[in-house]
């Protein structure tokens, strides 16, 4: 059996979710790691789109920012930032939006703006929205990747930076949001998916060796668990090797 960290399991599980031949709007950090791993394993024809304007980037190492030179050098086309949002994201050309979050609630709404309910006098000022609100609105579907903890997985986010399923099923349709919204949350403990009836995030897979109680303790709401709870296959040797090579090649 392979030795791997919970973060490695998370990256591998996130990578596996990306279908070959699809296009993915990639945020920096965990989403970028997963997308680049996917391109090197089962999804060589995954098209990576970065908000800096790089369409079809094929970086040889993990970019440290969404504007790395490596992304421009390897892209099919580099377009302006207005163009990437207006011509490529907004019309729904991108299949998957891959986002991180500071807070996530049980309907997949994302907060990256402020911690605390007083916007004018926040407990913690976070970086803000970036491209996420429109990625969450316009991509065919949204994958979210973040480490699970009661601070991050909250009953209700302090601020909706990016709309998930609102207060439940039907909210996106009512607002006229074109994409399907969050269809998958990948954490260091398992996978969550919206319940088909209610859109409430429901644990559908546990990573190997993780106990259900651990996940419940790391979730700030009363977690729904799928009746057919499965176990994620452990990372293969290939997946681990390629992930580690990627990470290593990206060290300064």
């Amino acid at each position, binding site marked *: 059996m392979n030795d791997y960290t919970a973060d490695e399991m998370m990256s591998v599980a996130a990578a596996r979710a990306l279908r070959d031949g699809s296009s993915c709007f990639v945020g*920096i*950090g965990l989403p970028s790691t997963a997308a680049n791993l996917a391109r090197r394993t089962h999804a060589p024809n995954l098209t990576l789109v970065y*908000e*800096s*304007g*790089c369409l079809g980037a094929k970086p040889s190492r993990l970019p*440290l*920012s*969404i*504007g*790395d*030179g490596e*992304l*421009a050098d390897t892209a099919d086309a*580099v377009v*302006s*930032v*207005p163009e990437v*949002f*207006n011509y490529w*994201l*907004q019309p729904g050309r991108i299949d998957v939006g891959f986002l991180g979050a500071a807070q996530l609630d049980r309907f997949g709404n994302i907060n990256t*703006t402020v911690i605390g309910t007083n*916007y004018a*006098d*926040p407990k*913690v*000022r*976070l*970086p*803000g*929205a*970036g*491209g*996420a*609100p*429109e990625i969450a*609105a*316009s991509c065919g579907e949204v994958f979210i990747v973040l480490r699970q903890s009661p601070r991050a997985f909250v009953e209700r986010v302090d*601020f*909706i*930076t*990016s*709309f998930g399923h*609102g207060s439940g099923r039907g*909210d*996106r349709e009512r*607002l*006229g*949001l*074109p994409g399907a919204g969050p269809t998958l949350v990948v954490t260091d403990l398992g996978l969550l998916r919206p319940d088909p009836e209610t859109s409430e995030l429901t644990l559908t897979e546990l990573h190997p060796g993780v106990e259900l109680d651990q996940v419940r303790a790391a979730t700030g709401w009363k977690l729904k668990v799928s009746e057919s709870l499965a176990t994620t296959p452990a990372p293969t040797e290939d997946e681990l090797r390629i992930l580690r090579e990627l990470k290593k090649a990206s060290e*300064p």
Partner: protein
Amino acid sequence: MAEIVFLADGIAGLVRDGDTVALEGFTHLIPVAAGHEIIRQRRTDLTLVRMTPDIVYDQLIGAGCARKLIFSWGGNPGVGSLHRFRDAVQHGWPVPLEIEEHSHAGMANRYVAGASGLPFAVLRGYTGTDLPRQTATIKPITCPFTGEQLTAVPALNPDVTIVHAQRADRAGNVQLWGITGVQKEAVLAAKRSLVTVEEIVDELEPRPGATVLPAWAVTAVAEVPFGAKPSYAAGYYDRDNAAYQAWDAISRDREKFARWVEESVRVPA
């Protein structure tokens, strides 16, 4: 035609206290040297504009140059938070910082409207989020043909936009390539503009993917080699990732930051 100037003269002539100033750059080609010159010249009450305020904006805010920030993502890319920005928002230090917060799509379209001479832009944006509740510059608009409701944002027209580019010729025609971000729009949207460049050359040779700003669309050009450091300039130098990492520790502490400003910025250039 653009005037060729020294950086200090360019900032002195174009950036005034109380101005709305955009220093744009999307990881690549960030006009850091120009930002430091603004700190040296002790400008105050600026409204700073940028999609992705990063460490040079943290420095401008920490140095007390800004009273307001219009932005969509404020962080130290790949490292974490901007501590001077946080300190200003959370504790009003050294001066309170008003914020006007958008998404990238909103900010990009505000510059596009500004560059296009339109008072506003239309996008599919912000729907369902809490941003319109906090940001007065986000309003609904109805399509006169379909009745569909969309979002309007007002044009951004900075008093001055400053960008960094690879090259200019002696007439002031500017060439930039690689990730060109929103720089063209930011320059065209502004009343005045300053472009710092790695070098001024006799003739601009055509480059794949290069954007050219004609001299008649630019107010002033200053030759500032390494003017984007610690960010990068494709074809000239790489990003100094260690400097971004190091900023975290410097910026966490007010005194350490103050010392850094005196020792690293306020020295004679």
